[in-house]
């Protein structure tokens, strides 16, 4: 049963299993385990990014396609939901049709880009996605009458998902079950379902074919697979899932803007999360997203505290000043790529074998 749910793709390493369980359970009970709004924000962000990164792994790790347009698809989903919520009011119906419309637009974009440019060399596809994504980001910031430009969109979400709504008055473990908690569980449940779906896709005949195409597209053609169609389908599927992750973000944040969805910085973060976690493993997305976001959220504070604690030491305290956190993240990244070229998951699995 569990094996079926994981599509026969078990973690295959005791340490990895333990880590994944800790992450799953923490996320599942986050509203009750972790105090404060900041930690709940972080947990929701982790859920959303796990899906986003996993959908990128389908493309990069399984199909061997490098795309820089993943945040564009993420943004299309977010803006679809945001526009629906601001135009047809804060109802669940708006969320559903907005997300569906976003996913559809993302699919059409991906189909067009894929058919147009996946026939030729991989580098050309990467360049096309970079160009299209940059153009899209500029377009969104210019069309301020529709998208709110650089300021983005603020909108209302259904009352049942806001902190003002109380499911019942009693508290569980000192936490009142309000709309924010419900909203979190919406994010968590959808993210979990999407992740399990992706896990199934990569272990399906289709997923295996993608790996064959990644390994040797020339031979894949010669045994009868139409490589362009497989690559395009993978691109479309990954775009749709990224768009749905964007919709989750739009609902969770009640705000959608270029900086939270479309920026190149997020694109690079996604790349780092896939590589740190381990390409072509799916579980790598879980570890990569979790570690990266935790570092992003808490490293700064941690370093600030450490810096002031040893403020007497001249050079070292400067080196670990709070605003140097990106430097250290960079160092961590270089070290992890150097020592674990197959990512954390690859390393853990190898340790067992």
């Amino acid at each position: 049963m569990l094996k079926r749910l994981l599509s026969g793709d078990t973690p295959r390493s005791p340490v990895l299993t333990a880590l994944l369980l800790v992450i799953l359970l923490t996320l599942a009970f986050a509203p009750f385990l972790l105090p404060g709004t900041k930690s709940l924000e972080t947990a929701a962000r982790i859920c959303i990014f796990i899906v986003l990164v996993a959908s990128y792994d389908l493309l990069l790790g399984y199909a061997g396609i490098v795309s820089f347009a993943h945040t564009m698809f993420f943004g299309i989903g977010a803006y679809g939901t945001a526009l629906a919520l601001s135009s047809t009011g804060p109802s669940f119906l708006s969320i559903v049709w907005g997300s569906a419309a976003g996913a559809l637009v993302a699919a059409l974009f991906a189909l067009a880009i894929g058919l147009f440019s996946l026939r030729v060399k991989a580098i050309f596809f990467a360049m096309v996605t970079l160009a299209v994504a940059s153009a899209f980001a500029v377009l969104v910031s210019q069309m301020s009458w529709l998208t709110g430009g650089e300021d983005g969109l603020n909108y209302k979400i259904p009352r049942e998902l806001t902190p003002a709504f109380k499911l019942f008055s009693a508290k569980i473990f000192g936490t009142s079950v309000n709309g924010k908690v419900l909203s979190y569980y919406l994010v968590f449940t959808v993210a979990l379902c999407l992740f399990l779906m992706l896990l199934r896709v990569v272990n399906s005949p289709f997923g295996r074919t993608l790996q064959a195409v990644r390994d040797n597209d020339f031979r894949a053609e010669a045994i009868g697979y139409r490589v362009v169609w497989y690559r395009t389908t993978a691109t479309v599927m990954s775009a749709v899932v990224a768009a749905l992750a964007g919709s989750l973000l739009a609902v969770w944040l009640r705000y959608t803007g270029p900086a939270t969805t479309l920026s190149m910085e997020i694109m690079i973060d996604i790349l780092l999360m896939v590589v740190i976690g381990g390409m072509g493993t799916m579980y790598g997305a879980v570890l990569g997203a979790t570690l990266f976001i935790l570092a992003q959220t808490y490293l700064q504070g941690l370093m600030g505290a450490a810096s002031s604690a040893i403020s007497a030491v001249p050079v070292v305290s400067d080196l670990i000043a709070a605003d140097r956190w990106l430097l250290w993240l960079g160092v961590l990244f270089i070290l992890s790529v150097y020592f674990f070229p197959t990512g954390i998951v690859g390393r853990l699995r190898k340790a067992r074998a």
Partner: protein
Amino acid sequence: MTTEHPILETRDVTIRFGGHVAVDHVSCAFPRGTLTAIVGPNGAGKTTYFNLISGQLKATSGQVLLNGADITRASVPERTARGIGRAFQLTNLFPSLSVRENVRLVAQAKAGKGFDMFSMADSHIELIERAEHVLAEVRLLDDGDRIVSALSHGDQRKLEVALLIALGPQVLMFDEPTAGMSVDEVPVILDLIRTLKQDMDRTILLVEHKMDVIRSLADRIIVLHNGALVAEGEPAAVIAMPIVQEAYLGKVPEAAQ
């Protein structure tokens, strides 16, 4: 049954790369159930001719016909679906996947299940069984779980042939199947080719340098030289021709291969 047409035929097939004519008006018919050896010195255009038949290259002019139907413009997967299969000269496998998975992927392609997204690949038992069956034929069954990139060269060549057997096409193209194999492994491959030809009535095209292999397997030889077909016929007769002696055997000592 329409046995009028030869199963495979090329008519004046030509390909130019800039000013260089790599294959020059080659017309040749391959009757069903025969094994034709294609010989010629290095650079004669044998592999290019293969590429024109299996579709990796498209002819500048001329036609390629399969069962009488024009496939000159057809893509590689289309030709594969119509029954042309090829084993490659330089081993051309899926290196990061297991031996079994390589063969299973061929069986999966043949079953048309490549776009099945929501079932588990390993739940298609019949494809795995098919893969195991083929691996047993090429004596690689015990290596099923190994990753291809870790295999010896000889085993990779065997797997190359296994992929072709799993595909089970009407026309099988072997491009130097025994190149770089150890002496004791060669007979395994040759027996397989013999079985394919005799028991399964398949049409086989074989690029080969070793004359003893050609003598023991081929029904017919065609000779390419500078891209043109210069001789064809029974093995003994062709090998005896002066042009073959000069163009082929004279220039390419066995030891160099």
